[in-house]
């Protein structure tokens, strides 16, 4: 039986290996045919005339992710602070349940909400209403539960004695929380932010509804963009040959970005464990 359990444990290794093999094998031909620099930094994505440059999509992905972080990080972190230090006892459980529920709402429902509520609102500011800002707002709402969850755990892990010592030195409750406890939980909070960043970068179905999906470099906050993820969904349905390989190569680029983010996440988490252990 020992061997059977060991075999099941190796399933995750096999899964990662298979994913790497299939993605790289599927995308590599396109990378060779198009050429890596042309593929990564090419400004034109015109599959019909065999032009495959994904730079607009890379920029688009980073723009919406950055926008989501700008709004989602303060909201998520401050919500965690509220939950741990400011929340009236009666409100704590309902609020936690609410955040859990927010994490569980399918991304297509967020996308739907964005499409039917947020887009018409944004049209008041001119344009189609679909673009970087709209996508960023929806993504920000989606990553709040992720960030708040991890940040809450990090804040709870900081020893209470720190807080009490700060009070004893004459600091107010708020100052103790923000200038003693939050720096103490900094690496945990950072881990949450990185996790949220991964979520935002990898999100597909919510973004596809509200980002506009134009494969050109964005010129402003309201201009439509296409992200790496949505590029795949939009065109995979009818793509063939080099076009399909180029889409798989797009996924490879996304995969590499996510792996880098994952590495950063586990490095930060390990740093946090070491700090608390010491």
């Amino acid at each position: 039986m020992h061997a059977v359990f060991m075999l099941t444990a190796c399933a995750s290794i096999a899964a990662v290996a298979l994913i790497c093999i299939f993605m790289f094998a599927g995308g590599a031909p396109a990378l060779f045919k198009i050429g890596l620099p042309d593929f990564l930094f090419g400004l034109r994505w015109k599959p019909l005339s065999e032009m495959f440059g994904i730079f607009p999509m890379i920029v688009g992905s980073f723009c919406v992710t950055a926008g989501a972080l700008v709004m989602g990080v303060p909201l998520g972190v401050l919500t965690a602070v509220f939950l741990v230090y400011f929340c009236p006892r009666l409100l704590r459980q309902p609020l936690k349940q609410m955040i859990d529920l927010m994490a569980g709402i399918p991304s297509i429902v967020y996308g739907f909400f964005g499409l039917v509520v947020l887009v018409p609102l944004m049209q008041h500011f001119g344009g189609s209403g679909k673009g970087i800002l709209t996508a960023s707002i929806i993504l920000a709402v989606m990553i709040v539960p992720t960030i708040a969850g991890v940040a809450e755990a990090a804040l709870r892990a900081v020893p209470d004695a720190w807080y009490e010592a700060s009070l004893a030195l004459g600091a107010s409750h708020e100052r103790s929380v923000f200038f003693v406890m939050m720096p103490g939980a900094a690496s945990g909070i950072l881990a949450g932010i990185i996790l949220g960043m991964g979520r935002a970068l990898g999100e597909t179905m919510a973004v596809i509804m509200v980002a506009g999906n134009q494969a050109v470099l964005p010129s402003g906050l309201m201009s439509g963009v296409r992200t790496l993820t949505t590029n795949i969904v939009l065109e995979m349905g009818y793509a063939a040959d080099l076009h399909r390989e180029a889409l798989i190569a797009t996924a490879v680029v996304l995969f590499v970005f996510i792996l880098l983010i994952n590495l950063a996440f586990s490095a930060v988490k390990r740093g946090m464990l070491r700090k608390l252990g010491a």
Partner: protein
Amino acid sequence: MTQIQTCDVSAAREQSSLRARFDPVSFSLRALVWLAALTVVVVFMWLVGYIVIKGLPYLSPRLFEWEYSTENVSMLPAIVITVLMVVLALLFAAPVGMGAAIYLVEYARKGSRLVSLVRLTTESLAGIPSIVYGLFGFLLFVVACGMGFSILGGALTLAVMVLPLIMRTTEEALKSVPDSWREGSFALGAGRLRTIFRVVLPAAVPGILSGVILSIGRIVGESAALLYTAGTVAAMPESLLSSGRTLSVHMYALLSEGLYVNEAHATALVLLIVVLLINFASSAVAALLVRERS
């Protein structure tokens, strides 16, 4: 002694709140925190309120007719396929994920090379975006294994996707079973395997169950990974190898076709209710866990 200490702290807190009233920094920090929490609550209420109010009027019996047609836009096939997808994906993922967790907690030596490799790959799996899973499933199950767009292919893809979730929750559940239980079982002459199945696993059931419920939530909500593995056929499936759309994919299809916005509202409501039920189930199980431990 502890009594006195807590009294001191609350007194200090009172004093500090008194002081905070005259400190602009403290005041604005407090305002900021309340504002953030309030924003999150308002956004959530807005989202849920909108879907409930707009979706309820369109929730007609015609939406639940057995046969799908372009006239009734029935979501019943999608519901059936969603249930099939959940059952199948868990059938693949749960035994493997639980076996892996049993290996990590009960058999493996701590810090062996295999264990750290398993942990690293599990963490990586957990971070991979669903669209990458979708493409992977498309390349492996749909094309290489020749399944075509099929419920089976979609379920296998989702099984890989929820594997890390099941592994992690099972592992935590097993770890929370006290070692003295294992030692007691060994002392009674039970072997390792019997100890695991008769003593450790029964005690860990609520924890494992909450992991399974979380996975159900992931599967129900997933759409990007299914689009190019299970496909988007709206009809009732004939076999596991026929293509079919789950509720989430159904909703995406409705939205991208742009013809059935009212039905999309109703579908959003149904999805929301399902998620709500799953959340209730998971917190009920968690409460059970707490009661059992104490």
